[in-house]
């Protein structure tokens, strides 16, 4: 019997769908096993079609993106009610995503910056008509509803999604690996003793040698090894978009911990090497960090 599957997009770039479709001909192996009941990116079903389904009638529900609007919250809650297995698909869904970085500011400041003060705006006004409204701050989906399977990635590679779907279709568990990107990286490593940190545009990255050893901030050591070290393999520092391994609760804290150990620099130099530590250390997972949670709790108290 074909399994009923629904895929939903909340606030996100829809890149996870793109990555799934990149399976190309291999999609043919999976598709006969699936009956798509909702997938706005590809199939023309409307929201009321999803709402009218009976509870627990979808075998696998994949949710991509995070809750920036109240409409997203509604969709997420519906998906939870209708799905037997709910998968948080992609870093936005698991950790809050790049948009989680907005948690550094209050909603009022964000709206003003975007709709009133943006350089290209000619008719400044905050849109209110026909909108569901914004959420105060981004909270990762697993903290809003119960999620059964986590699949981080920005986006998860085609193979990651295929592996997860195959496991779920054959009733096998899908667990995240404890290893890091460094474990998958082919670059040659030496004793780390970094005297100076460089930005990516400064100098040239020597191929075949560990990028961190060369003084570029490569976050492979604190990032879950799911992607197969795609970026370091082609001489590009890891940005940590897949988030930390399951045992690490705070990505940035782990990165700082490791940088303190490998950097042989004056404290001031080290501090100046990272002008935007939140952006550098929490690329897709600021919303799930302790810092963001502290601010989120304060926001709740002010009301």
């Amino acid at each position, binding site marked *: 019997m074909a399994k009923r599957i629904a895929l939903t997009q909340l606030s996100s770039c829809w890149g996870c769908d793109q990555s799934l479709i990149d399976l190309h001909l291999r999609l043919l192996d999976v598709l006969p096993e699936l009956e798509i009941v909702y997938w706005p990116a590809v199939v023309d079903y409307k929201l009321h079609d999803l709402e009218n389904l009976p509870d627990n009638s979808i075998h696998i529900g994949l949710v991509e993106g995070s809750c920036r609007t109240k409409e997203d919250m509604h969709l997420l809650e519906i998906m939870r009610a209708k799905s037997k297995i709910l998968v948080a698909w992609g870093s936005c869904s698991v950790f809050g995503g790049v948009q989680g970085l907005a948690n550094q500011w209050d909603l009022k400041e964000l709206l003003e910056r975007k709709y009133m003060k943006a350089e290209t705006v000619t008719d400044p006004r905050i849109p209110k008509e026909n909108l569901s409204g914004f959420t105060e701050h981004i909270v990762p989906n697993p903290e809003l509803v119960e999620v059964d399977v986590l699949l981080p990635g920005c986006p998860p590679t085609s193979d990651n999604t295929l592996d997860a779907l195959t496991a779920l279709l054959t009733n096998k568990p899908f667990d995240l690996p404890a290893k890091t990107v460094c474990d998958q990286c082919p670059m040659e490593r030496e004793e780390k003793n970094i005297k100076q940190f460089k930005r990516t545009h400064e100098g040239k990255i020597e191929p075949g040698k560990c990028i961190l050893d060369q003084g570029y901030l490569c976050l492979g050591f604190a990032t879950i090894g799911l992607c197969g070290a795609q970026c370091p393999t082609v001489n590009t520092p890891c940005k940590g978009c897949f988030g930390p391994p399951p045992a690490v609760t705070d990505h940035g804290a782990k990165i700082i911990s490791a940088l303190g150990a490998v950097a042989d620099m004056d*404290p001031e130099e080290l501090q100046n090497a990272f002008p935007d530590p939140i952006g550098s250390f929490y690329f897709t997972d600021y919303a799930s960090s302790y810092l963001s949670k*502290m*601010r989120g709790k304060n926001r709740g108290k002010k009301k």
Partner: protein
Amino acid sequence: MTAATQKTVPSKSKKKRKGKFEPRIVAFCCNWCSYAGADLAGTSRMQMPPNARIIRINCTGRIDPLFILDALYQGADGVLISGCHPGDCHYTSGNLKMRGRFVLLKKLLEDAGIDPERIHLQWASAAEGDVFTKGVTAMVERIKKIGPNPLRKGD
């Protein structure tokens, strides 16, 4: 617990707090210098405010920045880290590693909108009971100026 008792307990403690704010400070002290320094301060009967809760660790290099964030998240008003002087580390360089982590963490807190003065790093050797005492006193005064951690739970 009934709903009624749940309500009365925090409000009572709130009243108490309104009178005088007593900061709760988590102090991580390294086994080889500052913990012994704190011990010396105690045995020599040096006076210091009783606000610091000391946690002994082998070396300041063992402190994961996560411990500090977790302490603040759980409602600590301040976190004091006290270790050996640079160059005196029992494990040669643990305190220098902590120093690097500390400056990065401080910047991170500042950017996240949390007062970076809530965390402090000091050096106090095993013979410096007075330095440790002064450090704790200064820390308590600093935190009293900043005020309570908004995440602080009832006493």
